């Protein structure tokens, strides 16, 4: 087992697919379906931020758990993201904003 000294800020398709444990073609398909965010450089190669690895894990868990197709997974992911944002906002409001008479 080897350890990286610094975390790379972006990952190429092959490296990303290897770390995610899925085939590069599937990664590409996820990007086309809008399930993963990727940037494209001038040569057309895809680049990923490491945070997207957790998203692949979530896609695979949800797919295994619910037998969802990839299109409906996109909706589920968006809704879960929105819930996370709303919950964070609610926490922030509890922390700084309105008085809480507790």
């Amino acid at each position, binding site marked *: 087992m080897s350890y990286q000294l610094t975390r790379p800020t972006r990952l190429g398709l092959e490296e990303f697919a290897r770390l*995610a*444990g*899925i085939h590069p073609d599937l990664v590409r398909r996820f990007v086309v379906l809008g399930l993963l965010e990727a940037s494209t450089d001038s040569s057309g190669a895809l680049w990923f931020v490491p945070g997207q*690895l*957790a998203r692949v*894990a*979530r896609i*695979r*868990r*949800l*797919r*295994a*758990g*619910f*037998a969802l197709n990839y299109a409906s997974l996109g909706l589920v992911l968006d809704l*879960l993201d929105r819930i996370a944002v709303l919950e964070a906002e*609610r*926490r*922030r*409001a*509890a*922390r*700084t904003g309105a*008085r*809480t*008479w*507790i």
Partner: protein
Amino acid sequence: MPPAEDFYSVLGVSRGASADEIQRAYRKLARTYHPDVNKDPAAEERFKQISEAYDVLSDPSTRQRYDAFGPDFRRVPEDADPATWGRARAGSSRARSSRSWEEEGFPEGVRFSTGSAEGIDLDDLFGGIFGGGGRRSSRGPISGPDQEVELELTVEEAYRGGTRKLTLEGPGGVRNVDVRIPAGVVSGQRIRLAGQGGQGSGGGAAGDLYLVVRIAPHPRYRLDGRDVIVDLPLAAWEGALGASVPVETPGGQATVKVPKGSSTGRRLRLKGRGLPNPRGTPGDLYAEVKLMVPHRLTREEERLFEELAGTSKFNPRRSR
């Protein structure tokens, strides 16, 4: 492995449930306990049980084998005869077991295919992400989901910080985690415990566990962010004449100077005596004046108040 619970009760269906009922029960439970939907650490284990139960009961042939042989069905050779097996089991372990499949006997007309009793691929049965999900999931490591639990603290604990022993449920049973709570946490703040969340599968890393702080209601203190508000009961004459009185704060006793002419509702600030702030200025403590009069007056007190009433022109109901 935790003690095997009956698969039918895991799904909440009767032993005679139809395939549709089993599927319906599973879908409902999966939506409730899926670790990406339910962030409670206890949901992870529950979801595994639900998936394993569904995996077994949704397949007619494994369901038959489960009905016949019980939780050990995977260890029973595929060509075993249920009746013979049942007698052997009953003889060896009658005393400890009262499972219903023994009491009910074996279903009529159950036939078992006599295939080659090749070794059951345990990796296929348990290697999937969630219990028996092996067939439905692709191979390769999947990192675990993040989880959240609420951490209830008293105002004093939030003030002082310190360590807290947490007991977490998870696969592999209950584990204890020591958590360092920074001084001055507030409600809604999250404390991240890296790698303490949901388990990964196939060698994937575990997710993170977030403790969401909630500060418990306190009999004396109210919180507004990092400011602490506390009632300051004063005798009517202390409010009128001014006084120096002790007040309890989360950090210990402090003295508050009440200026002359303080009525109920006036807030006296003790700067920096609220909750500490690890990144900036601490909150303030506000002592909120609450004027009190004796419930029962002595003869002398009554005389003095009557004298005051006769002398004073003060009318609190007249607008200033």
